[in-house]
């Protein structure tokens, strides 16, 4: 069973996140980069399966800036057997279509029974990459799973969709995405960090994958404008002296909110 976990490096959400007003891309200097929490949970699903199945091989894969190598390596330290890092200056401003096309080629090249992704990344919050990959890879998509059971030839789970909770299953190979209802990931330990240094780490360019990032015959989505909004200012803050509730009621009535 070969499981590819798609991981993403994102700006740390606990810090201030900025966009470059020229390019519209994340300003990497503004905040620390971390492995997306949802990526870690996705990896945990794969590692938990591998803990009890000797035939399981877990690969972490990411399309990210060159500087993300250290973040991807954390996936190896946590327990993945190998890593694939797709990095190319031409892919820096990739739209969702190019991202999905590139990842799909890399996934096919690596080979897979199951692809596990997060349901939403915390920076883009696109949430469409998993379905796009399933289409390009010609396999089923079972998304937004809040529980996952992996079997020899199939994967199933609970899907918390809009207005309904459902049980879904798919034959392998398949793409699944998981939600933050799944457990927190394990921490890499010292042994894991040492072992990670010796694990295979493949770095691929767009050309290695036969991808032409600036193919003008393919329609893409482009950013046409960007503006920063002034941060919200704090208003009145009072300390409750026995009339806090009444004071809020007055504020609501004054502002026609009640």
């Amino acid at each position, binding site marked *: 069973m070969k499981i590819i976990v798609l991981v993403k490096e994102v700006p740390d*959400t606990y810090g201030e996140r900025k966009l470059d007003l020229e390019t519209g891309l994340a300003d990497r200097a503004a905040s620390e980069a971390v492995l997306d929490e*949802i990526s870690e949970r996705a990896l945990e699903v794969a590692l938990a399966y591998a803990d009890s199945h000797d035939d399981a091989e877990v690969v972490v894969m990411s399309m990210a800036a060159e500087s993300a190598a250290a973040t991807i390596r954390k996936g190896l330290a946590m327990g993945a057997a190998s890593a694939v890092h797709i990095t190319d200056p031409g892919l820096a401003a990739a*739209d*969702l*279509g190019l991202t999905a096309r590139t990842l799909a080629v890399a996934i096919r090249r690596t080979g897979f029974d199951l692809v596990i992704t997060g*349901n939403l990344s915390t920076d*883009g*919050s*696109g*949430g*469409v*990459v*998993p*379905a*796009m990959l399933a*289409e390009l890879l*010609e396999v*089923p*998509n*079972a*998304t*937004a799973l809040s529980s996952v059971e992996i079997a020899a030839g199939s994967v199933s789970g609970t*899907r*918390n969709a809009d207005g*309904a*909770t*459902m*049980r879904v299953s*798919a*034959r392998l190979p398949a793409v699944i995405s998981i*939600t*933050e209802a799944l457990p927190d990931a394990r921490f890499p330990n010292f042994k894991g960090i040492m072992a990670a240094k010796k694990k295979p780490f493949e770095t691929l360019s767009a050309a290695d994958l036969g991808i032409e990032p600036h193919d*003008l015959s393919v*329609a893409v*989505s*482009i950013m*046409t*404008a*960007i*503006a920063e*909004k002034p941060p*919200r200012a*704090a*208003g*009145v*803050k*009072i*300390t*409750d002296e026995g*009339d*806090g*509730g*009444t004071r*809020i*009621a007055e*504020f*609501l009535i004054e*502002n026609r*909110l*009640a």
Partner: protein
Amino acid sequence: MTDYPADSILVLLETTPNGELATSAAGLLGAASRIGTPVALAVIAPSQAQALAEQAAATGAERVLVFETNSTQAELTIPHVDALAAAAAVVVPHAVLISNSIDGRDIAGRFAARTSAPIAVDAIGVSRDDEGIVAHHSVYGGAYNVDSAATFGPLVVTVRQGAIDARAEARPVALESLEVPASGAASAAIESVEAVTETSSRPELRGATRVVSGGRGLGSAEKFALVEDLADALGAAVGASRAAVDAGYIPANHQVGQTGVSVSPQLYIALGISGAIQHRTGMQTAKNIVAVNKDPDAPIFEVADFGVVGDVFTVVPQLISALAERKR
């Protein structure tokens, strides 16, 4: 074959598990009507097609294409994508609008990949300029406004639920049944479905004009009822922080924030919520923010228009009686 207006905007209608038009449809059709002619697509059980088409026309669909099928009960995503591909081929729309819901995102992603169309996600609005359709986005919790567009061809847009105020005028019913060739793409199987029945008459969180949210400061599921009481006093929807969801005070679909729902109500009241950046991301575009927290340094006060440093269990009951007093 029928011909469609040159400025057609294809709208995928969402339906509730019992075949009614979902609330997201009004915003999608409203948005479509501002940039072209709304042509709606419904994927629906045969017995429910006529009623749905009537609801869609009343909500502003100029034409309603209907793919009558029961396959959506057993197959995830694929029936909708096949229908959308068939509809797009005959309508040749300038844009395809789909709800930014869990199902909507899957359908949009697959459809965009299948037709090599560029995709714009989580738009809070759409407009049209000389060069075509533009999608408007609010990113990093409303800190930036970003516009995006396709270099050419139709743009697939997922639209944030509750973000569009525009509404389209009712149209006469024009139902057309759509031939959908099956793509044969492998789909996941739906083994069972349990509709999440909202037992309350409270407004939906998405698109609500007032939201009252509670955090870990409420302390227990029982005591979280205080949040619901205030919400009811104000006719507000109920929200929560992730910590409150994790602690089991309330189901996950009430989570506000980066990985929950983004809301922009007239009024947002945060009770016992620290205001971590991931929470603020989902609510700081509210017009008015009120916060009650016993920690004077809680970050929620940085964005609150009216903040009270105090205990929710004394402040909120007083607020509820003051509101009741006024009603009398």
